[in-house]
């Protein structure tokens, strides 16, 4: 019924419009066509100039009124280094185009009024004017040349990839329907290889290739975690997609780049303002002092709830409008702290599971490397330590393995032992004892014997690797000096150990 009424109303409006049109046509015929045309020129010309004036006032007024959403003004100043250049180019362009806009719009409407047809009016025969045409070809040419040069300088500074010696934090963003996955590179600052064929939604949703050493320390943020980045530090985002096109868009940082399946892209930017600083700045604007949630007037204000956001800017399907993640910019120390709190996705979720291609390998290259660094520090500290502090003189091996019930070393032990030998050769003056310990299971005498045999195996390996035999001796302590409780399995494992003790310099 209501549709029917709506149709009737529309039809009535149509009839009224046609009647008005008809009447005005007839009245024009009565007045005489020419007279009517002249009258129309006067009134319509008047409306043209009024429209022109109001239009120009409205455009300029609205630009001033909305300046807070214009690039480079107030709260909408870019929060990245290159972004400021983009903003400045925008405003230079705005200046030039603004002048042209006002001048040409005004002339269009004003001339329509001024040169409206008049009785016995006569138009000018003006077919061309070479000088004038040259001038108005040359002026835009010069302005455009300026804008092209300035634009391309900004563009190439922003878009060119990093030189090899340039430092940057590498992160990776992967878009998919309809969210982003963010991967951090871990200690090596290298993002490991991935392959879409390895994707397994349950355990490896990004398809990370864990046979690539660089992948092993990488960190994939959980779905809702903030993307944390340090201020004043160059960030290189590698941008990839799992399914269709997406676009990695950080509006506050003037960052935007398509995510293309099969073709990784990148964007390099340097944040210049932390989230906290930004909030503090926004506090000065009245519109940011309204409550964030209008239904909760006592709740946090808008400026307090401000966050940098990551969005998708390339149509990717029905959930395109919902691919949000929060980006938090913090100072460098906070960033380091935050990073320390993250655990490698491999170690946390993959290591030792069926999905681990390294399953069965006891030691991985990055672990060996990490242990080597650690061992260097430990030996150096033990050498320097005061001899009254007995504990400080002890270096505990972490990756020395024996065959079960035997004193024969397994091959995996050599990584640590061989490296220890190299280090010890740097301190040719010190004397060392290799000490074996066991837990309290079994006969104490047998334990002592086994621990001595094992210590001797280690000593022999060190000698084999060039440490002078005169500097070393071995000792077996059995279960006599535990460092942990023997009541738990974990404690027992800690008590079964091989140590190196600096005994004199």
């Amino acid at each position, binding site marked *: 019924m209501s549709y029917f009424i709506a149709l009737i109303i529309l039809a009535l409006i149509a009839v009224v419009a046609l009647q008005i049109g008809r009447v005005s046509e007839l009245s024009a015929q009565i007045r005489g066509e020419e007279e009517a045309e002249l009258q129309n020129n006067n009134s319509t010309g008047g409306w043209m100039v009024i429209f022109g004036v109001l239009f120009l006032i409205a455009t300029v007024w609205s630009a001033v009124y909305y300046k807070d959403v214009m690039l480079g003004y107030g709260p909408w100043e870019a929060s990245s280094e290159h972004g400021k250049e983009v903003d400045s180019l925008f405003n230079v362009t705005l200046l030039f185009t603004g002048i042209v806009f006002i001048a040409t719009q005004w002339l269009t409407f004003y001339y*329509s009024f001024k040169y409206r047809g008049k009785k016995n009016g006569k138009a000018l025969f003006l077919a*061309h004017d070479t000088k004038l045409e040259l001038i108005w070809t040359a002026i835009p040419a010069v302005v455009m040349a300026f804008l092209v040069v300035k634009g391309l300088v900004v563009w190439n500074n922003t878009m060119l990839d990093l030189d090899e010696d340039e430092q940057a934090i590498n992160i990776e963003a992967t878009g998919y329907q309809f969210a982003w996955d963010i991967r951090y590179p871990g200690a090596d600052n290298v993002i490991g290889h991935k392959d879409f064929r390895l994707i397994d939604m349950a355990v490896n949703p990004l398809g990370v290739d864990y046979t690539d050493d660089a992948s092993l320390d990488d960190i994939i943020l959980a779905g809702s975690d903030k993307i944390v980045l340090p201020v004043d530090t160059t960030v290189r985002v590698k941008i990839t997609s799992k399914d269709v096109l997406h676009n990695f868009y950080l509006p506050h940082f003037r960052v935007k780049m*398509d995510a293309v399946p099969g073709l990784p892209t990148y964007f390099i930017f340097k944040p210049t303002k932390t989230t906290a600083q930004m909030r503090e700045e926004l506090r000065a604007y009245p519109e940011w002092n309204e409550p964030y949630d209008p239904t909760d007037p006592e709740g946090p204000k808008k400026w307090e709830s401000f966050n940098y956001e990551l969005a998708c800017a390339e149509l990717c399907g029905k959930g395109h409008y919902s691919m949000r993640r929060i980006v938090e910019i913090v100072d460098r120390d906070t960033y380091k702290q935050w990073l320390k709190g993250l655990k490698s996705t491999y170690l946390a979720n993959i290591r030792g599971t069926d999905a681990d291609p390294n399953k069965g390998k006891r030691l991985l290259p990055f672990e060996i490397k990490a242990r080597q660094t650690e061992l260097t520090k430990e030996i150096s500290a033990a050498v320097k330590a005061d001899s009254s502090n007995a504990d400080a003189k002890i270096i505990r091996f972490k990756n020395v393995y024996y065959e079960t019930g035997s004193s024969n070393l397994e091959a995996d032990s050599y990584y640590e032992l061989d490296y220890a030998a190299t280090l010890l050769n740097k301190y040719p003056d010190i004397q060392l004892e290799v000490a074996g310990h066991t837990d309290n299971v079994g006969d104490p005498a047998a334990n002592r014997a086994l621990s001595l045999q094992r210590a001797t195996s280690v000593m022999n390996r060190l000698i084999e690797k060039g440490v002078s035999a005169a500097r070393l001796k071995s000792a077996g302590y059995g279960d006599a000096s535990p460092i942990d409780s023997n009541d738990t399995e974990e404690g027992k494992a800690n008590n079964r150990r091989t140590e190196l003790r600096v005994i004199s310099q």
Partner: protein
Amino acid sequence: MIQTESKYQADVLIEEQGFDDHFHDHHHGDKYQTGFIGHYVFSMDHKVIARQFLITGMIWAIIGAAMSVIFRLQLGFPEENLLWIKPLLGKWIEVTDGVGKLSPEFYYALVTMHGTILVFFVLTAGLSGTFSNLLIPLQIGARDMASPFLNMLSYWFFFLAGIIMFYSLFLNTGPFSGGWTAYPPLSALPQASTGSASGMTLWLVSLTLFVVSVLLGGINYITTVLNLRTKGMSLFRMPLTIWAFFVTAILGLLSFPVLASGFFMLIFDRSLGTSFYLSDIFIGGQALDRVGGSPILYQHLFWFLGHPEVYIIILPAMGIVSEVLAVHSRKPIFGYRAMVFSILAIGFLSFIVWAHHMFMSGVNPFISNFFVFFTLIIAIPSAVKVFNWITTLYGGNIRLNTAMLFAIGFISMFISGGLTGIFLGNSSIDIQMHDTYFVVAHFHIVMGVAAFFGMFAGIYHWYPKMYGRFMNETIGKVHFWGTMLCAYLIFWPMHYIGMAGVPRRYYSFDTFDAFKQFSDMNKFITVAAIVAFFVQLLFVLNFFYSIWKGKKMTKQNPYDATTLEWTTPIEPIHGNWPGKIPSVHRWAYDYNKDQREYVPQYIPLEEGEVGDH
């Protein structure tokens, strides 16, 4: 002073001076226009085909505009109950607790169809198809197109394309919903979106037929302009309309086949298991074994058409506006040759700027340097055209009728929309502006509204030539002011939304703190869009009412214009001129020259007079 108003004079002069092509000598009955079907349906007469293109375009314009009203409701009033459109949209209105909401899938389908329909069916076929057909033979002094049969096929391929696209609206999985640019992999994989199932297949079939239509039309326009100009009509005596249609047809002929090849590869990827555009994709729980392609290849092929396409849309409008401005200012168009060279320069440059749509798509940033350079060069011929139009107004004796108002409105729109192009063409600014509402505002003003203004100027101006009657001026003025005002009220605020970084093609802005601040402005825009829609219905009403009831055209040359279409009889006939065809002695813009109010092209030169400029 030569009296030129009289019909008698013009006809006598043409009989005396005209060129006898013996057209009427061997008339064995009019085999092309026998009966209703031959005359009105499968017509080969360019004037009828022009009207077929126009009315079909108008129907599509109403459908496309109605779609925009529906998705604007979602953007402006997302909380509103849309249950009342359920009878029309059916399952695409999702009802929870008695409240109907537009589904996101169909929102994207509407956005996609709106773009496809407006760009291809309305502003390409409806604009260029109408006026190239109507004006090329009439203004160059030809009996008809070079091949009336291909011309007829051109319309019917367009019609068929329209039928298929229309059918796709009613599919269970909905019409295509991946944006009018149809970027793969979204458009290539049915798993990626429901609209990429059968909807996309029909979209591709429809647009492939559309390409055929454009090519048949284009070949005809080019051949006709090159071969069928009457005696004396040298290239530099042609009205600017003809120059514009001619260059438009060349652009179409060179660029649409590239689009077709892009479509074919997409069809192969969809149906034959190839991977031109696919690589490294994991979707719907499985990794596709289709590797080695590049989605960016499609973008290159698409925009190699896509950019010339915006000039295919705007050049005819420019030509029409140049003509209307000159006739109603009673002045020669200022800088005729500069205008011609600008059209040629814009046409040429349009082929080497396509990648400015792709600055942020992952192409090598180094390549963008060239595209920025060439893109911003286009500002120069465009600026020259604007200055020339304004100077055409200067010193005129302007008749401010509806056609002229739309022509003047076109200048205003072209300035507003053209200047924002200078922002977007500079890749550095495009980093921020790409795919935001700033882009939406830019292209809607410069190639949407401006092209429509050119089209309206043309319709109001040549309506008497099409139907022998005038459209109502009063309703026309309401139409103009309503459209002008609403167009700016809709699109001007979008610049600010875009500057604030709000991306286009968002179903809802509420997910993001940064984007949800404009809900009032979005309401405002939606209201303006609804008003604009009803104002256009007023135009449609005026159009159809005037066909039968409009003021009759009593003079052969009602505007005192110089061009040849106003020398044909008021009652249009097959072959356009009853006797000889007029021969041409001068350019098309002798207005207010040497004490003569206007001098039509068929008037011979007086002693010492120069016929060209």
